[in-house]
């Protein structure tokens, strides 16, 4: 089985540690060989750093990849942004000898060298390929009777020429992984639309970012789901903390729970909501919490 190192990025370890815990629980229960990636930094965030300066974006991303190269492991990301930065940097450096040479000049300053002998993975494409939705379904011990609004997030599937995960207008692979847990992935208006956080918009233009989010939330509310599921802590933060900001800014009363896929899968593999940090979210929806505790205790 693939040997992996866990790349945490910034938002998971520093804001939503429940996602870190959930990832470890899931991969352990699925029998993956997952090691810590010690000393890694910000990926760095693709929307901002890639917008500022290519050389430093590449150098920092390359350093993170090299740490994993040296362990002889593939890099596992649990964030679309980290995936975008590390995967794009890895591909560019592997495919462009001049860029690789230039980046290695910088890396030499800290005694590292990018060799180009590892891969960057995202937890969703990893699980889709192995074990895949069918086998995963057979491993579920606690089928989840939940209606879910799935948010793929942009950088998991786009740009498609690099990601090679197929159709970007109405993909299904992630929905299949959601449904493997027993949950139902409900269709909703503008499902493939961006959450509004990326590209430095959330940090630079907060009001506009929240307007985009409000539109998504309105569409999701219409679908009458139990929760939102994502595969990116930045989308997660936008949906969770951003939801409270939307309520404040626009006088709305959204209270839609938000789960990273690792937390949804963790529940289905028998972990309890508190082990997975679900209660640590900003959105506190007691009805939902009661429901998942009942599911996890086998009461429904």
């Amino acid at each position, binding site marked *: 089985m693939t040997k992996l190192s866990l790349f*945490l990025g*910034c*938002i998971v*370890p*520093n*804001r939503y*540690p*429940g996602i*870190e*815990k959930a990832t470890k629980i899931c991969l352990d229960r699925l029998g993956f060989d997952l090691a*810590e*990636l*010690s*000393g*890694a*930094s*910000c990926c*760095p*965030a*693709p929307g*901002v*750093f*890639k*917008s*500022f*300066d*290519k*050389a*430093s974006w590449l*150098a*920092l991303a390359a*350093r993170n990849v090299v740490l994993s190269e040296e362990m002889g492991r593939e890099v596992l990301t649990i964030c679309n942004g980290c995936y975008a930065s590390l995967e794009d940097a890895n591909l560019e450096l592997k495919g462009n000898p001049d860029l690789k040479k230039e980046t290695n000049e*910088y890396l030499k*300053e*800290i005694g590292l060298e990018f060799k180009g002998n590892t891969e960057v993975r995202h937890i969703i494409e990893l699980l889709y390929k192995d074990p895949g939705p069918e086998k995963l379904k057979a491993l579920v011990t606690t089928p989840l009777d939940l209606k879910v609004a799935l948010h793929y997030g*942009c*950088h998991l599937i*786009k*740009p498609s020429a690099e990601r090679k995960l197929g159709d*970007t*207008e109405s993909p299904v692979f992630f929905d299949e992984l959601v449904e493997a847990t027993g949950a139902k992935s409900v269709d909703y208006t*503008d499902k*493939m*639309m*961006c959450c*509004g956080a*990326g*590209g*430095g*918009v959330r*940090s*630079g*233009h907060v009001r*506009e*970012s929240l*307007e*985009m989010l409000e*539109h998504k939330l309105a569409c999701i509310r219409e679908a009458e789901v139990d929760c939102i599921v994502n595969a990116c802590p930045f989308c997660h933060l936008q949906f969770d903390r951003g939801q409270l900001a939307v309520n404040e800014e626009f006088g709305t009363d959204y209270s839609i729970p938000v789960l990273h896929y690792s937390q949804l899968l963790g529940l289905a593999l028998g972990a309890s909501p508190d082990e997975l*940090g679900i209660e*640590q979210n900003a959105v506190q929806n007691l009805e939902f919490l009661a429901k998942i505790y009942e599911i996890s205790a086998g009461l429904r």
Partner: protein
Amino acid sequence: MSEEILDMLKAAGLDVLACMHCGTCTGSCPSGRHTSLNTRRILRDARKNRDAVLSDDSLWLCTTCYTCQERCPRQIPITDALLEIRRLAVRKGFMLPEHRKVSELVLNYGHAVPLDEETKKKREELGLDPLPETVRKYPDALRDVQTLLRACKFEELLAEK
């Protein structure tokens, strides 16, 4: 007016000349529905080497969702071109104060979103080490990140022009 913008795009292998003005990019843009961002106009200004595009605030309203790039019937690498234009804008000194701040966080802590006390507690509640296995825990690793950024002259780029 200089030839700078188009030349830079060309040097990066980004061809934006084939645009047929269909407006698919603008029509597909999740940001443009709510904000002043007009993707087609930005590309047109870039094609015409209009320096005004570099100081155009709407350049920073793109979430880099790549929808326009996926849908462009002429396969123009729109989002990649926007990123390239942003980088030129930054070199010219156009950078939002909030973005300077995020950059400084990475310079100082190695993280765009550094650890806070509240999350340390949450980590402990979950039975995780209060300090994550990142640069946060390893001062040598943080120094490496800072050395690397210095080698790339990142700080100079941040200096207000």
